């Protein structure tokens, strides 16, 4: 992890400070009650950074904790322990509503389901205008409309004036999801948390939204945390890839490095499962039913050990930590070998 140079005031804007940094980020949920009370470890001691104008993909299966991370970053959940540093300052130090509002405007979220994330009773302009009113109160009414048109055009919908006056049911799934991005863009954000933004869409229009993310990074200068279970789409847009398994980040590194040279056996498994008509049918994961792990009151040890073909004794007693195994490439595995050089 990058060493930080946070000053007492916590608002350093130096280039060395990552846009956002998660330190030992942990979130547990209580399940059951009374004597049956247990702790579900959704996210456990996760560290990562997101740079400016960087697209970071967070991949893993359902239940691995990827959405919990997005919600922690968005402030929907409070971390059980650990902290989130935004531009060098911990979000837990935000006391005033002004600070919180500024953070939420800078780090908005785009949701998975474009069919339920827009209010069906209002025109699509409603959400965009409301967030403009909330986050940029200095704008006049006319300026808000102008700004709304600008962001709707920025996400590739035109003519903006016409689209703004439509109701969500008049738009296709892909168009609705673009409105979701427009709402996020309205606050001039720094980092958009995109939680499976394309998984509900048809394959034929997914690529358009992925291209949109890459384009917005260039034109609007935003970073993305792209959460997905589709590694191929992560490769298409992301600079860096983080693989999550059962609440832990098990591998992280530059996208190509992770894909060409996966270190963690779980990454291997994920890659083998991606359907690819251009490649021969790979074997080796047969027999793995893809059952998500239970992370209720976990004992020490690697959480992947029951599914792992390479597990050794040590994996059952000691939780592996992320180790540097290649250039900017880390994996949490006792068995993985570092690069030769």
């Amino acid at each position, binding site marked *: 992890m990058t060493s930080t140079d946070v000053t007492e005031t916590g608002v350093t804007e130096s280039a060395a400070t990552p846009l956002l940094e998660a330190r030992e980020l942990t979130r547990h949920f209580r399940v059951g009650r009374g004597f049956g009370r247990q702790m579900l470890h959704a996210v456990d001691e996760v560290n990562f950074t997101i740079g400016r104008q960087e697209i970071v993909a967070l991949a893993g299966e359902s239940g691995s904790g990827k959405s919990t991370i997005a919600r922690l970053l968005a402030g929907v959940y409070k971390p059980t322990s650990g902290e989130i540093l935004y531009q060098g300052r911990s979000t837990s130090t935000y006391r005033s509503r002004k600070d919180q509002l500024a953070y939420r405007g800078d780090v908005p979220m785009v949701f998975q389901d474009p069919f339920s994330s827009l209010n069906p009773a209002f025109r699509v302009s409603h959400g965009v205008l409301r967030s403009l009113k909330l986050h940029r109160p200095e704008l006049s009414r006319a300026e808000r409309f102008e700004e709304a048109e600008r962001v709707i055009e920025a996400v590739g919908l035109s003519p903006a004036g016409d689209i703004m006056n439509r109701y969500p049911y008049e738009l296709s799934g892909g168009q609705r999801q673009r409105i979701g991005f427009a709402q996020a863009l309205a606050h001039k954000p720094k980092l958009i948390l995109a939680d499976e933004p394309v998984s509900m869409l048809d394959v*034929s229009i*997914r690529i358009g939204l992925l*291209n949109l993310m890459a384009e917005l990074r260039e034109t609007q200068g935003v970073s993305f945390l792209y959460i997905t279970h589709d590694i191929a789409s992560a490769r298409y847009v992301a600079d860096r890839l983080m693989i999550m398994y059962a609440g832990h980040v098990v591998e992280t590194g530059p996208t190509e490095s992770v894909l060409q040279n996966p270190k963690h056996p779980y990454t291997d498994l994920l890659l083998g*499962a991606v359907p690819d008509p251009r490649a021969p049918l790979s074997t080796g994961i047969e027999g793995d039913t*893809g059952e998500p792990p239970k992370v209720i009151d976990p004992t020490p040890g690697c959480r992947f050990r029951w599914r792992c073909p390479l597990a050794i004794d040590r994996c059952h007693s000691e939780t592996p930590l992320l180790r540097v195994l290649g250039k900017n490439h880390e994996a949490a595995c006792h068995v993985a070998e570092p690069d030769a050089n």
Partner: protein
Amino acid sequence: MPDQLLEVRDLTVEYDTGDRPVVAVDRVDLDVHAGEFVGVVGESGCGKSTLLFAIAQLLSSPAAITGGTVRFQGQDLVTMTEKKLSALRWRDFSVVMQSAMNALNPVKSIGAQFRDTIRAHDEPVADERPAEVLRLVGIDPIHLNSYPHQLSGGMRQRAMIAMALLFTPDLIIMDEPTSALDVVAQRSLMVQIKELQKQLGFAVIFVTHDMSLVSHFSDKLVVMYAGQVVEFGDTRAVFDAPQHPYSAGLLDAFPSIRGPKVPLTGIPGTPPNLASPPPGCRFQPRCPKAFEDCPKIEPELYQVGAVQARCLLNVKEPVQERTS
């Protein structure tokens, strides 16, 4: 052909919308032979699910079959009485729905739901059959006593498939059974379906919007667009050399994890409104290869090498004259 299991001819389904009927499935032909795996792919709204429902005779108002025949083992399902159909369903063909999560009754155990299905048919079924089919799909028979909420998404889908196998039918119709699962579970389910198929010899019609998913599993591929079959042929042939620009577009729509990284464009535009389809070829407004004849002439399916494609670029001779 002796092993012809299902023969769909000129099947047309219309939704009665009040003013003008919407033709959701337009004169579709489909053949399924015993033991064959047929993939049906297309975007949402292309009529692929409606086609499945029409084949299984599960359409409900306002949708109705307005023409064509569905011959299953020589009998026409369209004109069959509901009573006869009930006897056939589950026993000779079964349907696995898109969201198995919702297809199972939440207040009944898996075993009780299996017994319901068995009781609805006169067929004698051994007492151990439910445990047997659960084992087939890789679930411990102990889960016969479990309720759906106690199973994971992947297990519920497997339980649905187990139920479809109770009577060892000749045909299983699957409507996006893996769309709610993530990649590893999806992959494992596909491999399992294929293995069961080899073992038990049933035929599969598999509907999905993700063309890459069926690439390694299906024998035949049907590509649908706006209610019509636009390309049909052996899966490998379609993947190696798609003859319809729409199939080619679908193939280029998803990134690969291997090989060089290439910019992709997907398919621009949106599928047409079926209440007023565009003139001529229905794909013409979105087609990168459209030329002046495309809005004027409605293309038929043309034989191009090993596949059939509904594109004027391939005009040589129509596959067959249509009289109806």
